[in-house]
């Protein structure tokens, strides 16, 4: 079968699917959907359909990125747009099947938006939602629209047309096209993809390798997982184009074993490509050979670093080695190797499907195109987003994210994970691109974006990241191995109230040495969270050191819980829930917390009924409480 025939069949299948008499029900089953109960919903849908004798097509799609609204179920009737329903429960499923499928009431009260052509009164179109308005979806173009386990869906939406175009060009022309698009590595470093390819293309040797870096190790980042779970073919097509351009015949996808669903969907995708002659020997009869193998990581953050990843694929300890030689000249098994990240590959296929000029039309002068971010933390609308480079942090946090939860105050946004930094209010109007974030002390990184509010302690956050990098340091070079350990010790001292005035200078000095002398980027960027928090939140460090106070009331050693004697109603709830029996009290007697026994777990604060609000958390303050148990109401009289 030629590709034209494959495509014709795929489009026919897609159209038959869209124009079918039967209604279509889409359920988002990426990991976030599944963990919110999407799989139970599918069972419920089938049961309800059967009970009501309705015929409908139920398909599983990936993630449209509204994680806060999961689980999402979309229903489409012929000739009408999909209606997306958010936070669906089994009860809502019953209601929707009766109301919309049977009685034709689309229930705008339960709907989030419509997707696709056409209008349904009372329900906004997805592009009008504040969360989606500023977004431009290139890497995530198909996420939530196609069945990730059906290659025909991808092909019907122009999939693999980028490969077809590339195969008609010379290698040089493909590399030139990528260079012209201005695409830079989306894994974090932001190195020009075209230049990287050219190095590998120019390297001598008949055998070359290509690697897709799917070892998304940054805590707080899930862009690559969502993309692979929702649209694996966009990444695989990019890899084929890259392989053709640099002349590689074998490729690897190095993926975290923590992503079982993504691995599963990749395997299915590879099988389907094989059937369509899009993989293996003599791809589409052009004489181009390329195979892809999946390598599961085994839980080592440092393997996201190129040279460590190469060691790991070779079956060794994943420890980086000094460069040069760069992988482009001597990488896997000593052969020229090109490594790009998942998102980069998805952009590559988009660029070849459209054009370099089209892609370069988005973004800023030096940072072209779009970037995906995993927006999480204390924002109202958490999720997976894709925005043009140059958008401001304010637009991301407030327009897309909907601002801070519970109307609290914005404190900082953390970008770039353990290699990045914390950016304060004063940077909110900064356009997001590689240069600007670097100047502010952080990095774009792979795309984790965690928003924090006044309850987050910046010293504790820095300590958290250092504990991560310290644990993940491979131990090969001294500055990273010993330096991160010392920094962590100092930060732990500060958060426990044992900080000394000279600690801040010591941290700065250590940071400088670790940045300069570490072998790889893990150590080289590890001090960033500390440097940015000292730069922007020095007063929080000083408060911990001089006043032994944690302004955010987050550091366990510096806080205490008290029961407010004027508010306690003696209901016994906190006493019963206290895991260490630290609360004394009786019915209608004002409860007391034994500060020596209290482990500061916060359970009492959580369980105290909100109408009483009798438990409080303080830092550096002494509260006056009764000396012994007294009855409710007698405190004011004392």
């Amino acid at each position, binding site marked *: 079968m030629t590709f034209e025939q494959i495509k014709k069949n795929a489009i026919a299948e897609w159209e038959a699917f869209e124009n079918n008499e039967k209604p279509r029900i889409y359920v988002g089953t990426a990991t976030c959907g599944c963990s919110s109960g999407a799989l139970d919903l599918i069972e419920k849908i089938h049961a309800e359909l059967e009970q009501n004798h309705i015929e409908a097509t139920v398909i599983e799609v990936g993630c449209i990125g509204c994680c806060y609204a999961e689980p999402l179920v979309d229903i489409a009737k012929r000739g009408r747009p999909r209606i997306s329903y958010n936070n669906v429960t089994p009860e809502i499923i019953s209601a929707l099947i009766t109301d919309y499928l049977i009685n034709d009431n689309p229930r705008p009260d339960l709907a989030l938006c419509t997707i696709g052509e056409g209008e349904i009164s009372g329900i906004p179109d997805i592009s009008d939602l504040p969360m989606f308005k500023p977004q431009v979806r290139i890497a995530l173009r198909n996420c939530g629209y196609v069945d990730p386990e059906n290659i025909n869906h991808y092909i019907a939406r122009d999939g693999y047309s980028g490969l077809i175009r590339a195969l008609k060009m010379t290698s040089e022309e493909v590399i030139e096209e990528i260079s012209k698009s201005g695409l830079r590595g989306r894994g974090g470093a932001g190195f020009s993809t075209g230049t990287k390819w050219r190095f590998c293309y120019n390297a001598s040797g008949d055998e070359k390798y290509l690697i897709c870096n799917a070892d998304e190790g940054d*805590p707080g980042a899930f862009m690559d997982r969502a993309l692979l779970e929702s649209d694996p073919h966009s990444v695989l097509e990019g890899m084929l184009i890259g392989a053709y351009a640099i002349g590689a015949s074998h490729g690897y996808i190095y993926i975290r074993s*923590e992503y079982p669903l993504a691995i599963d969907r990749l395997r299915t995708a590879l099988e389907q490509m094989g059937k369509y002659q899009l993989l293996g020997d003599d791809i589409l009869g052009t004489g181009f050979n390329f195979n892809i193998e999946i390598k599961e990581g085994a839980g080592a953050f440092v393997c996201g670093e190129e040279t460590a990843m190469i060691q790991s694929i070779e079956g060794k300890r994943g420890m980086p080695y000094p460069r040069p030689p760069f992988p482009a000249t001597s990488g896997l098994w000593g052969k020229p190797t090109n490594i790009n990240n998942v998102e980069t590959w998805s952009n590559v296929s988009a660029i070849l499907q459209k054009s370099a000029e089209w892609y370069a039309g988005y973004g800023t002068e030096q940072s072209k195109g779009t970037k995906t971010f995993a927006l999480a933390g204390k924002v109202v609308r958490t999720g997976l987003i894709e925005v043009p480079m140059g958008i401001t942090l304010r637009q991301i946090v407030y327009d897309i994210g909907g601002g801070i939860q519970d109307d609290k105050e914005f404190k900082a946004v953390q970008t770039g994970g353990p290699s990045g930094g914390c950016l304060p209010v004063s940077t909110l109007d900064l356009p997001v691109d590689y240069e600007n974030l670097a100047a502010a002390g952080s990095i774009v990184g792979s795309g984790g974006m965690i928003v924090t509010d006044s309850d987050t302690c910046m010293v504790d956050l820095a300590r958290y990241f250092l504990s991560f990098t310290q644990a993940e340091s491979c131990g090969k070079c001294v500055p990273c191995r010993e330096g991160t350990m010392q920094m962590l010790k100092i930060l732990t001292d500060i958060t426990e109230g044992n900080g000394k005035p000279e600690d801040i200078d010591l941290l700065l000095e250590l940071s400088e040495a670790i940045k300069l002398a570490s072998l790889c980027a893990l150590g080289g960027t590890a001090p960033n969270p500390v440097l940015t928090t000292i730069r922007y939140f020095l007063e929080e460090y000083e408060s911990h050191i001089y006043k032994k106070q944690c302004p955010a009331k987050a550091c366990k050693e510096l806080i205490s819980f008290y029961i407010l004697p004027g508010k306690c109603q003696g209901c016994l709830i906190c006493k019963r829930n206290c895991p260490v029996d630290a609360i004394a009290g009786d019915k209608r007697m004002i409860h007391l917390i034994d500060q020596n026994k209290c482990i500061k777990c*916060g359970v009492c604060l959580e369980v105290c009924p909100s109408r009483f609000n009798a438990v409080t958390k303080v830092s550096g303050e002494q509260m006056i409480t009764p000396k012994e148990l007294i009855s409710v109401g007698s405190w004011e009289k004392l």
Partner: protein
Amino acid sequence: MKAFREYFKNNRFNITCGEAKEIVDTKIIGVLVQFTRDRRNLIPVLQKVQEAEGYLSAESITEISHFLDVSENDVYSVASFYAQFRFTRPGDHIIKVCLGTACHVRGGERILDNVERELDIQPGQTTSDYKFGLERVACFGCCALAPVMVVDQNVYSRVTPAKTKKILELYK
């Protein structure tokens, strides 16, 4: 037995099947026969053996070392480098508490504290009755649902310290 014979056909040790039965576990052989005897397969072999056995026992390490012709020392050196591998028998239920950034800012550490106290074990340990094992995970990628705790394959989202106790009760 077919897997057994296959294994010895490809194996260059001069031992009879009778002797071999005592020193190797058929389960491990079932795993090893899926691979070629190439060092680059070390990590996938370790992963598959752990999947079959639950952990990497001293005996399986010996067997892997023979099979791939890599010293036991080297096998341990690689296995101990990666967080995925464990060398002691795991609990029946594996509890993983996520300590990713989003979980951290939403109180993940307090969740871990509570589980540690409830079960009286530290991450990496198993309760004395082998009922529960506890692990800390750097990030599940469910950041929007933080804080997250996973028991076996079940993901619990937006966990609070008081909720942890109730979740554990489900598995006791």
